[in-house]
């Protein structure tokens, strides 16, 4: 059994790492995750440590990415910001998976009025651009990290529900499901043990891509003042804070957090695309 599983995974990993861009994506994501985990040990200063005598310094040997208007070290704040980003990404996509996948599976498997109702609700949510929906939700929940997490999670629910719905509808027509049903396996068991494992591949792709957009939406919400509370170090909030200083020439307050957001999202997108290609059973795209 073990060998049987090992072999496809090995092939899959080989397929995945053949692509240079995927590798770049994986490295970017891993770097940020490691930086986030090790932030307290890597950061030269505390994220909120104030050194007013060193305020608004451009990047230099003591402060690699410069300082903001309180003399806080931008580099340290970006490292700690990565923790917020990784955390919000995981929790919000966790919420989306926990709600979206069961909803999609139920709608797809049972169909009928319930299924129809669930999917129409999802369509309604999908009708709004995700950032706008997230803003409206965050504004009505109230500012704060919790509100932002929930808003980003809710926004991502329909994507997972729809994906799972599509997968379930296809898989449930397969012979082995019919066979299971014929021998009297319960619905719950079929859903968990037969349908879900067969739908995992596209879900993983969706989770990777979803993490990217979760990072973007959380940063956007913080930029708009709907995310974290000050003085929490968060990339979107840092950009929002720094934008008042762009015309007076303190570019480092916005550029570095901007780069952090860009590289993270870039990493997730490359990784997600690569995973999709690698998991594609037909191997349509075999470009490097």
């Amino acid at each position, binding site marked *: 059994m073990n060998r049987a599983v090992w072999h496809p995974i090995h092939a899959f990993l080989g397929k995945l790492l053949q692509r240079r861009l995927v590798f770049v994506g994986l490295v970017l994501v891993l770097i940020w995750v490691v930086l986030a985990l090790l932030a307290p040990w890597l950061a030269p200063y505390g994220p909120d440590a104030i050194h*007013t005598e060193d305020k608004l310094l451009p990047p230099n040997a003591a402060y690699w990415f410069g300082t903001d208007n309180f003399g806080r070290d931008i580099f340290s704040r970006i490292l700690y910001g990565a923790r917020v980003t990784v955390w919000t990404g995981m929790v919000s996509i966790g919420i989306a998976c926990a709600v979206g996948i069961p909803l999609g599976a139920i709608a797809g498997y049972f169909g009928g009025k319930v299924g129809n109702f669930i999917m129409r609700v999802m369509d309604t949510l999908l009708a709004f651009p995700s950032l706008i929906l997230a803003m409206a939700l965050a504004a*009505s929940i109230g500012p704060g990290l919790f509100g932002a997490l929930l808003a980003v999670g809710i926004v991502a629910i329909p994507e997972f529900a729809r994906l799972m719905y599509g997968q379930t509808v296809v898989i449930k027509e397969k012979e082995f499901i019919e066979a299971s049903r014929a021998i009297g396996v319960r619905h719950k068991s079929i859903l968990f043990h037969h349908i879900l494992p067969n739908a995992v591949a596209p879900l993983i792709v969706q989770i990777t891509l979803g993490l990217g957009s979760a990072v973007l939406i959380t940063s956007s919400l913080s930029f708009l003042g709907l995310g974290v509370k000050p003085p929490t170090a968060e990339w979107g909030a840092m950009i929002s804070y720094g934008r008042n200083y762009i015309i*007076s020439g303190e570019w480092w307050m916005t550029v570095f957090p901007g780069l952090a957001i860009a590289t993270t999202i870039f990493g997730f997108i490359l990784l997600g695309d690569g995973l999709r290609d690698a998991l594609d059973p037909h191997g349509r795209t075999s470009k490097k």
Partner: protein
Amino acid sequence: MKSKKILVFISTLLVIMLLSACAKSSNSQESATSSGEPQVSTTASAKSSAGSTITIAYSQGAGQTMDPHDAGDLTSASYAFALYDQLVTSGTEEKDGKTVGRTDKIVPSLAESWKISDDLTTYTFVLHDGVKFQSGNAVNADAVVYSFERAKDKGESGSLYTLANIKSVTKIDDKTVEFKLGAPNHLFLKYLATFSFSIVDPSVAKSNPDDYLTQHSAGSGAFILEKWDPATEAVFVANKNYWKGAPKVDKVVIKYVAEASNRELFLDKGDVDVALDIPAKDVESLSKKDNLTISSQSSNRIVYLGMNAKYKPFDQLKVRQAINYMIDQQKLIKDVAYNQASPLKSSISSKSPAFTSEGYEYKYDLDKAKTLLKEAGYEKGFTFDLTVNSSTQDYEDIAVLLKAELEKIGVTLNINKVAPAQYRELINKKSAAAYLGKYTSLVNDPSYHYGFLLDSKGASNYTGYSSKVVDDLLAKANVEPDEAKRTELYKQVQKQITADSPWAYLYESNLIAGFNKDVQGYIFYPDEIIRFSSLYK
């Protein structure tokens, strides 16, 4: 509560849709300026066609009105002063070669003279001859009586009407009006000079629906409202027949530009002539530019940290004192206000009559703060929420610095940064244990200031401060006709409040405005309201 949240949800969606609609139209519009901002490109073209137009960039546009009796914010107040006259008005003085407004000095306006009875409760005003409203009707006693009737029924002016304790307004003859007060009030003339008691044209106001004046003008003022869109701009044209002499400009255009850096860019490029609310951090760099003049003057504005004694641990004087000892005013002035502020040593601005810093002995002292906390039983510190309005960056900056300071004595400060509407709701209900507040007294006098802020019944007493001593002193001072005795009473009030420390004083901030070099005639008034009529270029 639930329906409110849904309302917020729906309205946010609608606003966003509106915004995105705007963005679309701006893309299709041909943009003349390199900034690509459609609003400003229209200004630029308007400027070249009209001879003398002054364009002013305001930081806020929403939520105001053209109705002087409903006006409650600085934006609406500046409109009221442009469109309407009052019976009396604030004077000016020459100081260092500059003309400066004096809200504590009253001079005639529509009323050319007045008599005050010996018991100080009857004021008789004689109106100026031949003054006409913009409609051509004469400004007469009937108009004054009507305006005060109208002011009495409106929310904003109504509260001032009550505060002024006006019992009756009667017409004696066509040019004479008599006011009777419930009790002597040394501030009465100063109240009359506020925009709330503007004189409106009864023929226009009466023949139209009640809310007509919200969007139209019917005054005798130096300007006439030409058009107004609360989201983008307001246009005022000069009243050529203005009885004090026509203004030197043909037009004043107000642009609403929320983002401070945009206001600075537009000012620097000459797209606007005047920009209000320039961030303090940019004063130094902008002052160096040859094409700009930056005016940074101390107004009546005070910035403080309010602590509500209803909430633990602020019920203990020693805790409030400890917080006071953790305030480093010089540091705040340097790092938050970029030196565009001065220390605040009383609960009232140093520009106010009767100001005294006596009794203010606080200075930054870590050990003293620690000792006080220990005595109060909070040796290990405590945690509290500081409610901060998101409208101004400075307040968030203050909060961040205070948080870092308070950590040194084991106190955890959570910054509760909320939108302006939510902020007002929180502090109005007195449900903020601690908040950052600012206040600018429109009438530069302790009676008005304390009547709102620290009298136990004060409408803006957000800390719920209630002191029998202070209330009694204020009541006594309000009816004290002798200025020297009154000053003494107000000094006692200040000492008592400082001793009770319901607030931690932070600083007195400057009012900062930017001008292009060719703009002349700006007069700064400590009430922070800009008057258009003196501007020219």
